């Protein structure tokens, strides 16, 4: 493989502590050589690559995707940068009682990546992608900052989790209170993807293209169907994939490849 892997120990101003970020950047390789591209052309300042911000699930960390899927080979094949932050169990939110993970990832890390690495700043080349809790986070990134991320993709997403918190059926140990705060105020907040999508649609801003895949045996399946129906009702460009599978890395490893085929890579 002609890939650079970077593990960054990054002191964050927003988090106020040092966090880990894993990145993969494709190098000049056989495909370029076959296509007659020289190393000088490839390593020129003009060559900016698309970026996938790829989010892990609950209990996970920034190295998960590299350890449990073939994402690095996909990024070599399709020539895009992979950026995997750590967000602990925050659901990628600015936690009601905890760190501001959402701002860290969508402001500070986003800016750092575009100033440090050969990353495209075109929203058509910036993708928020994730699984489970990270799927929720990816959809939220794209629906909050469509000018930054032209595409959002989720697998086995926890899109419905704010509704579960409101209904008192959230499976998290504290019912999701440390993340979402008062359960009575979750619906309609910026953490409620249903409401976020409605407001974005009404705002007249550019809309991201979205993708959601969920296995029919996955415990998030019903919530994902509800979110899918909501998004299609709103008229979003929303690709829905429903197939046999459950909440497993086998499923996500298969579907990250499908996400890469769906993205403009």
């Amino acid at each position, binding site marked *: 493989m002609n890939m650079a892997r970077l593990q960054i120990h990054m002191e964050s101003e927003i988090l106020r502590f040092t966090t880990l970020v894993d990145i993969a950047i494709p190098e000049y390789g056989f495909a370029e050589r076959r296509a007659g591209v020289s190393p000088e052309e490839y*390593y020129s300042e003009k060559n900016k690559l698309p970026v996938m911000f790829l989010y892990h699930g609950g209990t996970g960390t920034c190295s998960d995707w590299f350890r449990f899927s073939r994402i690095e080979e996909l990024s070599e094949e399709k020539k895009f940068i992979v950026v995997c932050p750590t967000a602990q169990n925050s659901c990628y939110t600015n936690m009601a009682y905890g760190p501001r993970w959402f701002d860290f990832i969508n402001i500070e890390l986003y800016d750092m990546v575009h*100033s*440090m690495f050969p990353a495209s700043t075109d929203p058509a080349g910036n993708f928020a992608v994730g699984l489970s809790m990270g799927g929720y986070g990816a959809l939220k990134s794209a629906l909050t900052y469509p000018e930054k991320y032209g595409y959002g993709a989720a697998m086995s997403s926890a899109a419905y989790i704010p509704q579960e918190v409101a209904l008192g059926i959230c499976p998290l140990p504290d019912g999701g209170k440390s993340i979402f705060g008062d359960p009575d105020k979750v619906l309609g907040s910026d953490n409620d993807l249903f409401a976020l999508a409605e407001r974005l649609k009404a705002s007249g801003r550019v809309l991201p293209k979205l993708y959601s895949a969920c296995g029919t045996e996955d415990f998030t399946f019903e919530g994902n169907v509800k979110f899918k129906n909501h998004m299609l009702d709103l008229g979003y460009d929303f690709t829905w994939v429903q197939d046999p599978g459950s909440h497993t890395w086998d499923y996500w490893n298969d579907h990250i490849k499908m996400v890469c085929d769906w993205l403009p890579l």
Partner: protein
Amino acid sequence: MAIIDLTFRSAALGYNTTVTVCFPENNGSDRRTGKPYRYKPGVKYQVLWLLTGGGGDSSEWVRLTNIERYAAEKNLIVITPATFLSLYTDMYYGEKHFTYLTEELPRVMRWMLPISDKREDNFIAGFSMGGYGAFKSAFAYPERFAAAGSFGGALDMVSIVKSTHLHDGVLDRDFLLAFGSLENLEHSVNDDMYMAEKQMKAAKDMPKLFISVGKDDFTYSRNVETRDKLVDLGYDVTWDTGEGTHSYEYCDSRIRVFLEWAGLKGTPIYDTEG
């Protein structure tokens, strides 16, 4: 401060190798002291290519000194490659480490990271065999570096080999693998003093040099002799010494002196083209 452990596949070496990068990131103390937000596309940094001693990998400088902290003070990116026993050569029996260090690594890092390619923003230094690698690079490519530093450097390689590593006409193993023979070494790009003289006689604009060695370093007297030779050749040499041996402890105590001496800008470089 931030640190990157980077692994990539080198075409020059033919295998995956590691690079450690220190870079100054945006942080709370920046905001408190009113420094501008640095995560802007197009921002560049000055860079120090920092070389380990023989047998070292990319992690040594960062683990055994506080270079990460000192570099952050100067808004400097530090790039430390792994070189093992290559003596920073295109080895006679082995891989092309000098090509890696001087051609591939700068090309890939300049694309991957926001480092300036201007001579005035590029510095190279090293410990022990890395001091030799740094000076050799500066002599071979004087147009690329503003300054070079050596800490307990294995300088004047021909003299080292002749006095210590040549037995019955055969080189000791590391030197044999790197150079093949004394004849191959002499008057080659690996012959640092030959290159120093040749380039100066060609009236090249040579980088300024910083030679530092601990008072109890076993390389002390050779460093004195090398300094005198380089001064005689017309080099701008700054001599630096202090308490210490052939160690990273000594490097840690002197690398800050080098960074002060180098005349760094101390800020990110925002005014790039476009």
